């Protein structure tokens, strides 16, 4: 029955060989050589002397012959070998195969043989698959074309469709691990784009044969439910990793300065447990690499649980608050588990705590009492208040005026020029920045709120009521933070030297000023803008994010130092607004530059990139992947590799030929 499970890579060639060799061999046994005829008294003794005296008139009945049997066996084995039988394990007969190799954070779990990572296992398995589909040799049919796509947060083609096995293997080996989240839909889109043939004459799209997908992953993919397989598409899922691997990690960390004692910081951490057993362990705090605090008692994190309603697994989590630590100059704060598990990347989380900074803020426009009061209540270095005409005059004199302030608050009025600077804008739409107003909406409530955004830390907008707001259409560069049924309520925009937060309504036409969250939002916005539009207090980046920085205008020789120690120069025309990335691995990245020395101006900036254990920390490999429309069962590890039998058949054929030769020698 094993033949039924085999793949025959070159059955046509085998048929030709079998038909062209076996019948002639049998015919040769029928035919006789031309020999000298001699009449003798009796052939009885000759028959006894040698077995090849068996009479064989032309085309007489075929008699049993061990030699013929052995030769037929050898030829049959050769023909079978040429057919290249292989054990088929879900393999497709597609002419094109797309290898989708997961390089997300969870693929760094070291639960493979010899504590190898899942990514290493996936790469090894993928290499074996490439060799298997190209193992035909000179008798094989055409090898399928293979494309290699590595995916994590986004997808990347490492090798377009090619039948060059060496190129494919080189591409597979070049895959670097990341700590990013896992999204697969981009990979399918990319593969489909390369699988589609366009006829330029008819201007119509002709879909080529759907490629076969081979997915090498642990199955923990966030957007599977949005991925739909099209007709003819088939996925072979190579399940990498063990289904019982436990993992705990740091789900988040926050550092805030004590408003009353700016030299001290308060550190918050969230510990995540994906295991079915409670996690118990100590949590440590390191500042600039030195252990500064540890939890007095081991932290116990409850087990993860299955939410049957949503059909998802919810990790157990526990929040940890450390006592205030003195940090007058800022530094790199790292929260880590005292004991590492199989996934190291999420066992630690790092934030870059900036030194307490005295901010210069301008309040321009109407200057509502509430805003003025709030700003005055913040520990700012300076607060300057301008009317709009005064501000426009200053802009006319010096267009770089906005850069002299860390944040400019525009209250219901727009300046003549809004090309650079960092703004917190209320109500009046920044049309010049690409935001298009189209009317006024009344009686709006917040419906979609991105709670995780740094601007909304400790801000509750669930109960806010806005009597009137400007209806705007946000462009592609805008990032909507809060949205109502009538349109965006709060959005951010970061374009070139311009960074702004736009609140589409006048707070005075809402009940927001009467809530504590309004003050927090104000403070968050000032800190976020002052920090360059990234974070309140250097909020950590997620793997795959891009680092944005505002450097001095005259900064030169900008470079980025990776956590691995590798330093890469950054070529950027406008140092005042640098975007670099994506930063795929977790850890501390340090951007450094050279500029004329200005007092107290730093010459480097650190970026913390943390893997979010809540998203990517689940380490138990999935036995199947559930797409939107179908499920695909996984093939475990190397079992899915097709075993090529033809070399063994060839070896056996040679052995049979040797045996036949030996038998023949014994008889002659």
């Amino acid at each position, binding site marked *: 029955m094993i033949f039924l499970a085999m793949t025959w890579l070159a059955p046509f060639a085998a048929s030709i060989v079998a038909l062209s060799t076996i019948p002639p061999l049998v015919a040769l046994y029928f035919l*006789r*050589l*031309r*020999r*000298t*005829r*001699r*009449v*003798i*008294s*009796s*052939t*009885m*003794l*000759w*028959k*006894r*002397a*040698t077995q*090849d*005296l*068996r*009479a*064989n*008139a032309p085309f007489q009945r075929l008699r049993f012959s061990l030699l013929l049997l052995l030769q037929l066996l050898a030829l049959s084995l050769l023909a079978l070998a040429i057919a290249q039988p292989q054990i088929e394990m879900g393999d497709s007969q597609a002419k094109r195969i797309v290898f989708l190799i997961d390089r997300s954070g969870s693929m760094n779990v070291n639960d493979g043989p010899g504590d190898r990572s899942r990514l290493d296992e996936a790469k090894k398995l993928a290499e074996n698959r490439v060799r298997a589909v190209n193992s035909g040799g000179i008798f094989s049919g055409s090898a399928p074309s293979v494309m290699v796509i590595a995916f994590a947060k986004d997808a990347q083609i490492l090798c377009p469709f090619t039948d060059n096995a060496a190129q494919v293997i080189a591409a597979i080996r070049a895959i670097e691990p990341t700590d990013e989240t896992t999204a697969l839909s981009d990979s399918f889109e990319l593969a489909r784009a390369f699988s589609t043939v366009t006829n330029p004459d008819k201007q119509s799209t002709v879909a080529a044969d759907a490629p076969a997908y081979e997915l090498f992953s642990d199955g923990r993919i966030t957007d599977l439910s949005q991925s739909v397989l099209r007709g003819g598409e088939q996925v072979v899922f190579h399940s990498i990793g063990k289904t019982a691997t436990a993992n705990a990690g740091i789900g988040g960390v926050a550092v805030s300065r004590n408003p009353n004692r700016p030299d001290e910081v308060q550190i918050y951490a969230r510990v995540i447990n994906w295991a079915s057993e409670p996690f118990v362990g100590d949590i440590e705090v390191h500042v600039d690499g030195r252990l500064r605090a540890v939890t007095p008692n081991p932290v116990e994190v409850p087990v993860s649980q299955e939410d049957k309603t949503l059909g998802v697994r919810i990790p157990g989590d526990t929040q940890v608050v450390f006592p205030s630590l003195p940090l007058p100059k800022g530094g790199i704060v790292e929260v880590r588990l005292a004991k590492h598990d199989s996934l190291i990347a999420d066992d630690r989380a790092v934030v870059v705590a900036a030194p307490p900074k005295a901010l210069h803020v301008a309040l321009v426009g109407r200057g509502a009492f509430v805003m003025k009061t709030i700003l005055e209540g913040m520990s700012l270095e300076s607060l300057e208040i301008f009317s709009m005409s005064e501000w426009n005059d200053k802009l006319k004199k010096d267009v770089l005026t906005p850069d002299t302030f860390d944040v400019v608050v525009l209250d219901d009025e727009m300046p003549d020029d809004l090309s650079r600077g960092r703004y917190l804008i209320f109500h009046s739409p920044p049309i010049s920045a690409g935001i298009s107003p189209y009317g006024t909406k009344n009686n709006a409530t917040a419906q979609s709120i991105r709670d995780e955004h740094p601007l909304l830390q400790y801000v509750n907008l669930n109960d806010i009521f806005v009597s009137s707001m400007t209806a705007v259409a946000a462009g592609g560069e805008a990032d909507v933070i809060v949205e109502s049924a009538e349109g965006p309520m709060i959005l951010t925009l970061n374009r070139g030297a311009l960074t702004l937060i736009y609140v589409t309504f006048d707070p005075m036409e809402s009940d927001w000023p009467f809530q504590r969250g309004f003050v927090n939002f104000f403070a968050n916005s000032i800190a976020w803008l002052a920090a360059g539009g990234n974070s309140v207090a250097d909020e950590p980046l997620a793997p795959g994010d891009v680092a944005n920085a505002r450097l001095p205008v005259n900064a030169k020789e900008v470079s980025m130092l990776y956590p691995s120690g590798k330093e890469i120069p950054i070529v950027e025309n406008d140092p005042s607004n640098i975007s670099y990335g994506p930063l795929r691995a977790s850890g501390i990245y340090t951007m450094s530059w050279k500029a004329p020395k200005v007092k107290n101006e730093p010459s480097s900036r650190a970026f913390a990139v943390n893997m979010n254990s809540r998203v990517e920390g689940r380490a138990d490999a999935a036995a199947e992947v559930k797409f939107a429309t179908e499920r695909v069962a996984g093939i475990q590890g190397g079992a899915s590799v097709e075993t090529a039998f033809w070399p063994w058949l060839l070896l056996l054929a040679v052995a049979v030929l040797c045996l036949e030769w030996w038998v023949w020698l014994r008889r*002659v």
Partner: protein
Amino acid sequence: MNPILKVDDLLDSRLMARLDRLDVISRKIFAGKIQGERRSRRRGQSVEFADFRNYSHGDDLRFVDWNIYARLDRLFLKLFLEEEDLSMVIALDLSMSMNGGNPNKFDYARRLAMALGYIGLVNNNRVSLFGFGAERIERLTSMRGRRRTREMGRWLLDRTAEGIGGFTDGMRTIALGGQGRGVLIVLSDFLFPDGYEKGLNYVAGRGFDVFALQLLAPEEMDPARHGLAGDLRLIDSETNKETEVTASTAVLTQYRKSLETYVAGLRDFSVRRSITHQVVETSLDLDILLLDYLRRRGLLA
């Protein structure tokens, strides 16, 4: 050797003169049919004393031993051995396998049969000739006296070798025939497809003093020295079946082993049944065979 065209070709006068001095001897004593020149198991009227027995009424008073009567006062009768003739049966293989070889095995066998028969006739033995072949038994029985020599020669002259085997049936016919017990000389190559065992068993168990003379041609004894080499298609003279042979050194060696094994098997079989077996290569001069070989083997004296 000249072909046999007439009776004189079977036995020339020179050899005939030398054979006159020979006689057929038997290791056994058989009862003859008529009074002859050989001792018999029967008590008869020869001059050779055999035994005594008590006189009984009606016995011939000429054989009473009167000297014993004088001493013992009892009548004893003297018994004398009877002298009778010897039955000599010559069985000639008429199968096609005999018609081969150089010198021809059948011609050689006929000359040998003629010579042996002549010896038997000259010595007043009762000579019978049997020819056995495929489904045929030909015979010329109960000849006696020199004057039957030509008759025997003509009979031999008329015999031809053809067909397959017939050995078993021939031996059975001889064993069950009424020609009387005596010396049986079988002239054959003993290359019978269905074996020789059954046929020899028929005559071995019937009291014959059997001589099995196995006639083999020189090319059968040593094919390599007589032109059998290379890729050959050998045709069996009896069955006309063809056999392909590549007469390599290894094959020829194996053939010689097979021949030795076959001859040794026949010899062992014969010895166990008191049959005298003798391989005769047809290149051997008939004089030497008769005057030397067969005398040493005890057939002739």
